[in-house]
């Protein structure tokens, strides 16, 4: 029976993501190139197009940027020949396995880094009044703010230029100032950005 192939595949993906989780400093998106190599190039479980669509869809959807990970697990399961045979006779079973595969991938990317962070953070919090710990957090603050600005620049630079660079820069600066200076609800800003895009302004 080819069932073992599915479980083995899920397990293999689980371990691969499990290991990547521990080195994903800066978020899951930093290990995306390696996941692409593993799923698309080495194993051929996804097409390059499916991989890119997963990243794009995850950006459009709400939630942290790691949401492309469960989507990849889901897609890999749907691609497998075993499930393809099942889709006529037992479609509900196909959905269940695909959802399982999605959550298995999610667990693998979240669990190891979370356990590590939980223990380190509790350790540090228990010693939060000690000068060494206080100084460590304080010293990091300006560095981390700079990393945020760098991330904002990276996102801004990654946008394809269609109607010129300046309208995009103007929209980004406007959004930043509104976040900084007003209490306008952030969903309005997102909606405004979507509209500006749909009308072809940026």
């Amino acid at each position: 029976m080819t069932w073992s192939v599915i479980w083995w595949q899920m397990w293999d993906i689980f371990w691969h993501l499990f290991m990547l989780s521990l080195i994903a400093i800066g978020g899951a998106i930093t290990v995306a190139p390696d996941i692409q190599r593993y799923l698309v190039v080495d194993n051929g479980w996804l097409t390059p197009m499916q991989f890119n669509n997963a990243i794009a869809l995850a950006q459009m959807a709400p939630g942290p940027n790691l949401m492309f990970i469960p989507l990849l697990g889901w897609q890999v399961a749907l691609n497998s020949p075993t499930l393809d045979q099942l889709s006529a006779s037992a479609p509900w079973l196909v959905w269940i396995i695909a959802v399982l595969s999605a959550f298995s991938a999610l667990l693998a990317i979240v669990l190891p880094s979370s356990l590590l962070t939980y223990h380190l953070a509790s350790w540090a919090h228990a010693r939060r009044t000690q000068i060494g710990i206080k100084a460590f957090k304080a010293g990091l603050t300006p560095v981390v703010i700079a990393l945020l600005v760098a991330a904002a620049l990276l996102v801004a630079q990654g946008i394809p230029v269609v109607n010129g660079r300046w309208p995009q820069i103007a929209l980004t600066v406007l959004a930043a100032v509104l976040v900084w200076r007003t209490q306008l609800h952030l969903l309005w800003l997102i909606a405004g950005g979507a509209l500006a895009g749909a009308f072809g302004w940026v």
Partner: protein
Amino acid sequence: MPASISDLFWAFTRIALQGFGGVVAIVQRELVDKRGWLTHQEFTEEWAVAQIMPGPNVVNLAMILGGRYFGWRGAIAGVLGMVVMPTFIILVLAVTLANLIDYQLTRDIMRGVSAVSAGLIGGAALRMLGHLNTHVLGLRICLVLFTITLLAIAWLRLPLIWVLLPLAAVGWLLSYRAYQRAVRT
């Protein structure tokens, strides 16, 4: 401070569902401004810790805060709040939208949303910068560390780890001496 574990779970679910790329700005709004669970300084510090740990930053932050309030059960509730609903939503999107979508319109919308996302992240950073004048190192040294980091990452494109390790060490040493001086006087 959250009233209960389920309060915590729903707070982070709300944050996750509002986040389109710029989740940090939303966490800041919800937890500092609206709910008052953290001060601005606490938020910046916890964010610093969440960012240097491996794993997704906002998930780390949800877990650290959940753990702070309710121990390991709070940590689990925080993480689940961040990821469970978004996972279901993205799977539903994948099934219903992926084949129906007009790809040109999607790409147009995506450009606008991405430009705003960049602004949300930048705006969150601006708000944190505004609170640096109460920092133990003083505003000037903070701005020097900030500028060096920004140039090294955004302009020279150095690997994160090689920027973070030396600058964290320098920032730590300087702050350590500043705290010691503050204790002595």
